[in-house]
């Protein structure tokens, strides 16, 4: 089942929040500046009651939580998303999982939240399965899963999945991550994931032995097409640095 119009604005809020995370920065639950995915989720799903499973960093249960509603285990999330029967509970589970984690891993789960909110059940389930691989220390396998099953999800959901797969590969295989971002930009240059993908791809291409000219092109296109996007200031800074460097 596709998301309804009721959640459009919260979705935008989540996407904006995810994009607003500085590149390379991490989200640290508990820090004053950290945003709480669970809090955002509560805002999104409105009356749906959730009860936090005890976890080191879990937020205290909301006042409106129904006593018989428990958050799913992470392993159950793909199935819940795929079935479409208990999507709100799955989303709450993703949010809770993000709160349990810290740093880059938390960021990935927040990204999953955006994919699951915005995309169809197949996309959400595939992304969740990929992240479970990452949780087990196998991010490349997670990315491989997305790559191999990408054709099974609707076209509109593919950019978000490619972006997530590229994130999974940033550490273990940056070249492959760059290839996925190139594919994302070819497939959907106007997708909401495109600016961040372009920025990260440019950062990779500006590295030694890569394609600096293409990096400059990407940054210029990004800035000109989205001058007020949250990543535009970083793109301008990067462009200046690339031009200054010998």
């Amino acid at each position: 089942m596709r998301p309804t119009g009721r959640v459009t604005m919260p979705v935008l809020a989540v996407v904006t929040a995810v994009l607003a995370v500085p590149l390379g920065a991490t989200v640290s639950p508990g820090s004053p500046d950290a945003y709480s995915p669970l809090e955002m989720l509560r805002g999104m799903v409105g009356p749906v009651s959730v009860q936090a499973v005890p976890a080191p960093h879990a937020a205290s249960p909301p006042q409106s939580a129904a006593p018989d509603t428990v958050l799913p285990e992470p392993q159950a999330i793909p199935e819940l998303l795929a079935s479409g029967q208990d999507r709100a509970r799955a989303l709450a589970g993703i949010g809770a999982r993000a709160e349990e984690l810290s740093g880059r891993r938390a960021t990935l789960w927040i990204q999953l939240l955006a994919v699951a909110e915005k995309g169809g059940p197949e996309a959400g389930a595939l992304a969740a399965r990929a992240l479970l691989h990452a949780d087990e220390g196998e991010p490349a396998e997670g990315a491989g899963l997305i790559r191999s099953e990408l054709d099974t999800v609707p076209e509109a959901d593919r950019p978000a999945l490619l972006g997530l797969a590229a994130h999974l590969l940033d550490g273990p295989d940056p070249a492959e991550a760059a290839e996925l971002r190139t594919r994302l930009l070819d497939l959907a240059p106007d997708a909401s994931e495109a600016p961040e993908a372009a920025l990260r791809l440019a950062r990779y291409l500006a590295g030694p032995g890569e394609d600096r000219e293409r990096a400059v092109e990407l940054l210029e296109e990004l800035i000109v097409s989205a001058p007020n996007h949250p990543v535009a200031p970083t793109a301008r800074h990067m462009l200046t640095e690339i031009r200054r460097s010998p």
Partner: protein
Amino acid sequence: MTRRPTRTAGAVIVLLLALAAFLPLPAAAQHLLVPMDRPQSDHLKAYGLTYWVLERGETAEWFLNYRDGAFLLPDSEATRREAALRGVQAEPVDGAAVARIRARIQEGNMEAVPLETAPRIAIYTPPNAQPWDDAVTLALEYADIPYETVWDGEVLQGELDEFDWLHLHHEDFTGQYSKFFLAYSGSAWLQEEVARNEEMAARFGLDDVPTLKRTVAEEIRDYVEAGGFLFAMCSATETLDLALASHRTDISAAFANGRPPAPDATQQMDWSRAFAFQGAEVQTSPSVNAFSDIDFHQVNTANRRPLGSFRLFEFAAKIDPVASMLVQNHQAVISDFYGLTTSFRTDRLKPGVTILAQEGDRAKYVHGTLGEGTWTFYGGHDPEDPEHQIGDAPTNLELHPNSPGYRLILNNVLFPSARPAPLRTQ
């Protein structure tokens, strides 16, 4: 025969107009207005954008006192792209909007000044200087305005004629190495500076470094007199005038030329040669790190005065567009900042010097003319580093894109673009 529009055609027009309202930018406005008031995202790069337009052979206008000194640029896809790349806010405006702005300018203390040429810029700086040694270099680098560097050799070979605008690095034109011998005599960088200057003096057959610097100062004076634009900051302001006025005496400490200064040096000064100052007492003691009593703040002496804020004057834009151009800013009161010369005692200014900004009874920013040219002196070293010390990290202007103190520097850079056409005489 005139065809009357049909109802269908009218509906199409209404539909098109309605659609146009949702476009992010008008497809083709006639101009781009670059506002310079507080909402401008990057004031400093806005100057670079305007320079870029001029460099392409196009013309622009500077709306003095309108939205704190907005620029009007011809609209084009390329200019919009450049504005976006630089992060400069630019608003498309059509002919009717420009007409309304001109009407406002006509009514108020405002003026529209055409900008016609991209000035050729030279910075007088030693060959080994780092960009962060000099606020002007930092500003030009950040705003992406091209410049060339010159030093004593180029000046003495007459190369200043190739430039419209000359900025002086914080040079000590008295040839005393900023009196850094007091604190840095063992430093490798100072020894290197001494060797480089002595070598330059020998190359041009001059007796010593103070003579070299005074000769360079005279060349700079000739450059201005012939129509050049001079902008100096920090110690270059004070020492340039001291060098020019000391042509018949010796004001330099023994460490600079091997001789003690003349005991009556102050009395022998010829201020008629100077740009801005007169009647100053020369500081000839080698143990006092000051050049004269022109500077009010005396930063490296026991008489050091604390920093305050300086206020920009507002000038009548239609009557005095030059002074108005130099003070365009989104902030009238600016925090002061030290330099080897921080501010100028007003009782040491020549009559006719225009004070552009003042802090109490001392001037921070002054302007004047000499012959066909003009000069502007701005006290202090770095507007965003009030207590700049040798070895400090460079100022990162990405953190200060709206710096009002740096804006004053860039006003000077564009000022030569507005050179009025020569008056036609019978």
